[in-house]
């Protein structure tokens, strides 16, 4: 069973909640916010392995390439360019699709694996389980690819928690796709609500089971107001509390420090675990 924690807006509390859920249920953890991974500050895993994730990229044979430039015209990602008679690759733009190799009349192109980032793994005493963190190479366009490669490693039989990326783009979709249950974290603010509704639309379109958690709520009344016209209500509301903020700053897992959060998450998620 896979639980994905997403939000739309950044800073809503995805990582905070994902870490807490993993702690409550002692679940395996996947940090898929690959271009700003932060879960390790809370889970404090003892990293024991680092696996490089690669994708194939073209390499040009100097002997065979006559600089015709067909590949540079055919590449739809504008990853290839030619100066005089030499073709160059702008690697961060390459999707590894193989088209350049197919179109090359000289058979001058071969493919070689190149790094897009790493997966670091280690055991966390706090969640009593493994933690896997995706580190995308800074500036890379291949975030979604790295996410998909990490998702392939998840054992669906075990209970796993995914900390997803912010936003509502294909990277978020890739983190929602494997989920049996989605936890939508919403900050009840005009920004937070706006972005969460877009994420909710994606989750609904994908036919996923989901729960909404309102985080950093100024008051119960304000949350009620936001959800007034919504068929789906927040299953749990966590208030904007300086104690939580402080614990967060110190790298603490909220569910470990505050019984009400432990209990709240347990109450809303346990029935879902039984269902699947």
């Amino acid at each position: 069973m896979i639980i994905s924690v997403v939000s739309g807006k950044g800073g809503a509390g995805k990582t905070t909640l994902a870490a807490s859920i993993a702690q409550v249920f002692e679940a395996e953890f996947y940090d898929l916010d690959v271009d700003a991974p932060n879960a390790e500050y809370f889970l404090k895993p003892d990293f024991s392995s680092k696996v490089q994730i690669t994708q194939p990229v073209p390499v040009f044979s100097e002997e065979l390439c006559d600089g015709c430039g067909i590949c540079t015209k055919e590449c739809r990602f504008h990853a290839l360019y030619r100066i005089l008679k030499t073709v160059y690759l702008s690697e961060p733009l390459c999707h590894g699709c193989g088209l350049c190799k197919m179109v090359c009349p000289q058979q001058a192109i071969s493919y070689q694996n190149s790094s897009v980032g790493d997966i670091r793994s280690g055991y966390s005493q706090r969640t009593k389980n493994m933690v896997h963190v995706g580190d995308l190479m800074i500036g890379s366009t291949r975030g979604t690819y790295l996410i998909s490669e990490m998702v392939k490693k998840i054992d669906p039989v075990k209970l796993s928690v995914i900390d997803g990326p912010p936003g509502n783009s294909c990277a978020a979709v890739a983190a929602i796709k494997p989920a049996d249950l989605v936890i939508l974290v919403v900050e009840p603010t005009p920004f937070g609500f706006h972005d969460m509704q877009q994420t909710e639309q994606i989750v609904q379109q994908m036919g996923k089971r989901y729960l909404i958690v309102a985080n950093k709520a100024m008051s119960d009344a304000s949350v009620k107001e936001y959800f007034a016209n919504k068929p789906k209500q927040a299953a749990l509301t966590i208030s904007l509390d300086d104690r939580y903020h402080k614990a967060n700053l110190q790298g603490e897992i909220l569910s470990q420090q505050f019984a009400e959060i432990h209990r709240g998450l347990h109450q809303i998620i346990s029935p879902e675990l039984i269902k699947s």
Partner: protein
Amino acid sequence: MTRQISILSGKGGAGKTSVTASIIKMMDSVVAVDADVNASNLPILLPYTQQSTTAYFGMDIAQVDHDQCTGCGACLTACQFDAISQNEEGRILIDSDCEGCAACAFVCPENAINMVKRKGGDWYVSSMDNGYLIHADLIPGEDNSGKLITKIRSEASAIAKEKDIAYIVIDGPPGTSCQAISSITGVDLVLAVVEESLSGLSDYRRLAELIQKFSIPHFVLLNKAGFSPEVENKIILSADEFGGKVIGRIPFDHNIPQALQSLKSLADMDKYKDTIAELLKQIT
């Protein structure tokens, strides 16, 4: 010459949009760009009148002409993204994982695959009392390509030039991937809004590394500060390390999210008006 200022953070929720809107509200004349195209929030805080809507098309994607297709399956092997499948009746199906590389179209012996346009969203030009706002709505789940950001930024430059507006202020996306790069290239200054937290620090360091690669000067605004002098100090030291300069500090204050509930920015709060005015002076 128009000066371009990009406001970024690395971490989401650090306060980019609140700060950007506050700065924009205090400027005499500005072209504002919301480059966080898949969670666009800047327009929520700025009063504007929409003037035009333009459809945005992302990558062309593959489409099968079933009259031509013989179901040979050559495309299945060519696709590196597992985006093509064949159902029990032999019909070739292309799913939403298609990245638009056109390898399938190239290998198809029947020329039965065409690359077709797909709408990715809309972008808008609006007028404000003190200038223009350009923002976009990406269709949820679309590839958040830098292409759209590049498009709206070039539109902003054109407007600034035509109307003789001295500043373009860009509200950037979170993260340090290609979208962040699209919001950094060619700007004159980056203002990094850094949340006083371990995550804020870590994401700022990734961002600063990226900014440094482009040799763009950057300033740092500390946000939600006051709980951890230790983290704050680490942020200041990190700024030094990456050639940034801390030019302002906004405390963690419940009044700020409270004001945001009624769509008020820092520029509308007596307590922070001067802070924003000072910030504006430093970056312009």
